[in-house]
């Protein structure tokens, strides 16, 4: 096992009775990278994370963190790991401050100046009892405890679902700070802009299976760039090139065409268009959202990739 791989999951399956929550989960997180784990609700993100944490046991497959088995060596692994659950529930009778300290102590750490700084940044009143906290405030408690912990691997399960945009900013800057210090992060989310901004690599999960993983750039090859082109000569024949999809001609201007193109066809297209004398060209690279929506529609057929960016 390479020292550079923090989390490695191979062919993990999890069955609850007859229900197969995880069918085939295979991915890894490298040291020092932010890995985005995206998928719709109920796809198995939280189940995967709970398996990684040794809270539930995989039915089959192999999962290791720092090279150790996640089920057998969970206590040692947790020593070097910080986790923020998707739904944070706290003991109503304790204050936020008490819970933060408790969480730190449970991992042998202490309340430091960093903790105070985070409490200020996240604008939390630590003297209030947890019963008075909103969802966002409960999330802040878990985030503050996690960020002030000096771990090597951080797992966030939909961490910003209850935070307001200002606090989302704080969260993102803290994650980028961790990254700059060489920490590894697994970030589960369905807020795509967040993943797009922070993650080096992403994995897409659907119905218990990782269907795609890689860097965002690699993924973009899998989808299409949107083009809007105005040419001097009629360029409608561009639709005959292999790799051009969803072609149509602008209703008010027959010289203006809209289409999407596969990455490997772009060179041919550009040569063809240049011959027709390009007057104006707009191209929009695919966003994660396109990717995600494509898979979300349960389609392996790329023609259904959303072209809402047009």
């Amino acid at each position, binding site marked *: 096992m390479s020292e550079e791989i923090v989390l490695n999951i191979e062919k993990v399956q999890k069955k609850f009775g007859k229900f197969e929550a995880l069918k085939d989960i295979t991915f890894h997180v490298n040291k020092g990278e932010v890995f985005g784990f995206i998928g719709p609700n109920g796809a198995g993100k939280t189940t995967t994370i709970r398996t990684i944490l040794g*809270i539930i046991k995989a039915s089959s497959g192999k999962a290791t963190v720092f090279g150790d088995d996640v089920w057998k060596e969970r206590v040692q692994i947790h020593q070097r*790991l910080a986790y923020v659950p998707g739904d*944070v529930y706290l003991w109503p009778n304790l204050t936020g401050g008490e819970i933060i300290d*408790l969480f730190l102590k449970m991992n042998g750490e202490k309340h430091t100046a960093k903790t105070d700084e985070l409490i200020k940044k996240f604008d939390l009143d630590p003297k209030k009892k947890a019963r008075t906290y909103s969802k966002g405030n409960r999330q802040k408690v878990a985030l503050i405890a996690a960020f002030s912990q000096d771990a090597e691997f951080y797992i966030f399960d939909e961490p910003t679902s209850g935070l307001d945009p200002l606090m989302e900013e704080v969260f993102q800057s803290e994650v980028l700070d961790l990254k700059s210090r060489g920490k590894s992060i697994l970030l589960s989310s369905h807020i795509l802009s967040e993943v797009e901004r922070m993650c080096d690599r992403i994995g897409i999960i659907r119905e218990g299976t990782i269907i795609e993983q890689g860097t965002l750039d690699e993924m973009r090859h899998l989808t299409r760039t949107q083009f809007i082109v105005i040419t001097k000569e009629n360029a409608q024949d561009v639709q005959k090139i292999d790799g051009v999809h969803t072609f149509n001609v602008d209703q008010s201007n027959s010289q203006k065409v809209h289409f999407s193109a596969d990455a490997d066809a772009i060179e041919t297209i550009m040569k063809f268009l240049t011959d027709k004398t390009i007057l104006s060209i707009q191209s929009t690279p695919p966003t994660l959202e396109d990717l995600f929506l494509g898979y979300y529609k349960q389609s392996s057929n790329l023609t259904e990739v959303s072209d809402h960016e047009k």
Partner: protein
Amino acid sequence: MKNNTKGYLFLNRLNLRRDRFNILIWALALAGLMAGVAFKFEGIYGTPQSIASIQTTLHSPAMKALFGSFDTALNKSSDVFATEMLIFMAIVMIAMNIYFAVRITRGEEDKGLTELISAHAIGRGANFYAATTELILINLTLGILYSVGIQFSGMAGVTAQGSWLIGLGLGAMGLLFGMVGMLMAQLFDNSRSATIMSYFIFGIMYVARMYTDIKNPDQTWWVPLGWIEKIDAFHGNNWLPVLLMVLLSVVLWGLALLYNRTRDIGSGLITVQFGKQRASWLLRGPITLVERLQRHSTIIWIVALFILGTTYGSIFDTIGNILKTNPTMQQVFGKAAVQSANHQILLNFVSVISVVMAALASLPALIAVNKLRGDNNRGYLESVYAKALSRTHIFSGYLLNSIVVGIVSFAASLLGLYLAGNAVLTHGDLSLNTYVHTFVAVAPTITIAIGVAALLNGLAPRLNWISWVYLGYGFFASYLGKLIKMPDWSTKLNGLGWTNEVPLHSVNYTNVSVMLLITLGLIIIGAWGYRRRDLD
């Protein structure tokens, strides 16, 4: 007002649907218990001789403390039934009502469901009225089932009026405590506190009526719980107590309604908003965490059982004074014999109530272990699972708290008994050793109950309700076992049947050791299961 009750009928149906299995199980268990005992009674107390044999026992202070004090002459089996069964059945009804009342009001609010419902076109008061209706229906149904069951039980001396008086009287008593539960659910902002306070009020009344029953039964009229003793079924048939219960229920309901209408959803009259900014150095791991979470309730239980002990102790002079009831005895048997007889009565009293106190001390102990599942289901433990803590460590946090609260509150009750008992006795004090022996013999019954709960929570948390069945059965068998002449083996199905009636008899160290070994075994299997299962 119309807006206020909008959706009431809808909620009513929804709630009844939601609780249907719960209600069915309670109703079957309680009505079955009542009818079963009623049908059995003619067989046990069908002859004057059999009644005579229990008469002296029932007039002993220990039995008065448990079953109440009655003037009715015991001639027929129905007479025994109509007196001695009342307090026990009232306790069961009260437990059921507190359970439902808190659950369907504050419990729903704790889960955030009330908020969800209030967001719809449902009147502000609809929830409250629906809960009230549900409680009335439950108690009315059970009252009718009891009445019919008794009427057709075939006991000698049963009359229709008397049967309905007992049935509806118990229903009214249930409703009364249902309203206590509802009021507490309005005052406190979490269901745990509301339940504890409801039981606290019940506990005060129970102890008060026990005190007046032994000292002066007429004063029992001052205690609402004691009203059930005053119905005089099959003879005087006094409906006044039932009327009083209903009236008091209405008053409590009105108070609850008043608070319900003025407060915000999710809040209570008594709330604490602020606390410490930093954790104390004590709060550092699962063990101290559970201790901290349970601290208030632990202290309340210990103090409450200590008070219960002192109350029992404070009547020792009345109990241990045979001369009061039989002045010629000293002349016939001599002073020494009288004192020895007094001593025996006291020891018997201690042996009976120490079992009851052990059953009571098991309550907080089971609550503490079963909290492992509760906290898991509420999601409180999700973050803790990802910490560098072994599962054994987390498990032991709950277990240790359970053992401490169970054992210490039981010890506190015996201490109360010892201090108050010796304070009122003019001679023939019971030595501290007597109580130490009682503790040694009885405390393992508490740890076995804890072991049962630990096993269930470790292996199959969904079945942890079985621990309550175990304790409930033990309570039933030790409370009523003698009265309804349960066979010996059936009382021995529970740890409480193995105490060897210490201090009346000496400690059976084999029983004690076996009970401790069983406890240890149950806990080890539970912890083993907890380490290897999914925490979901």
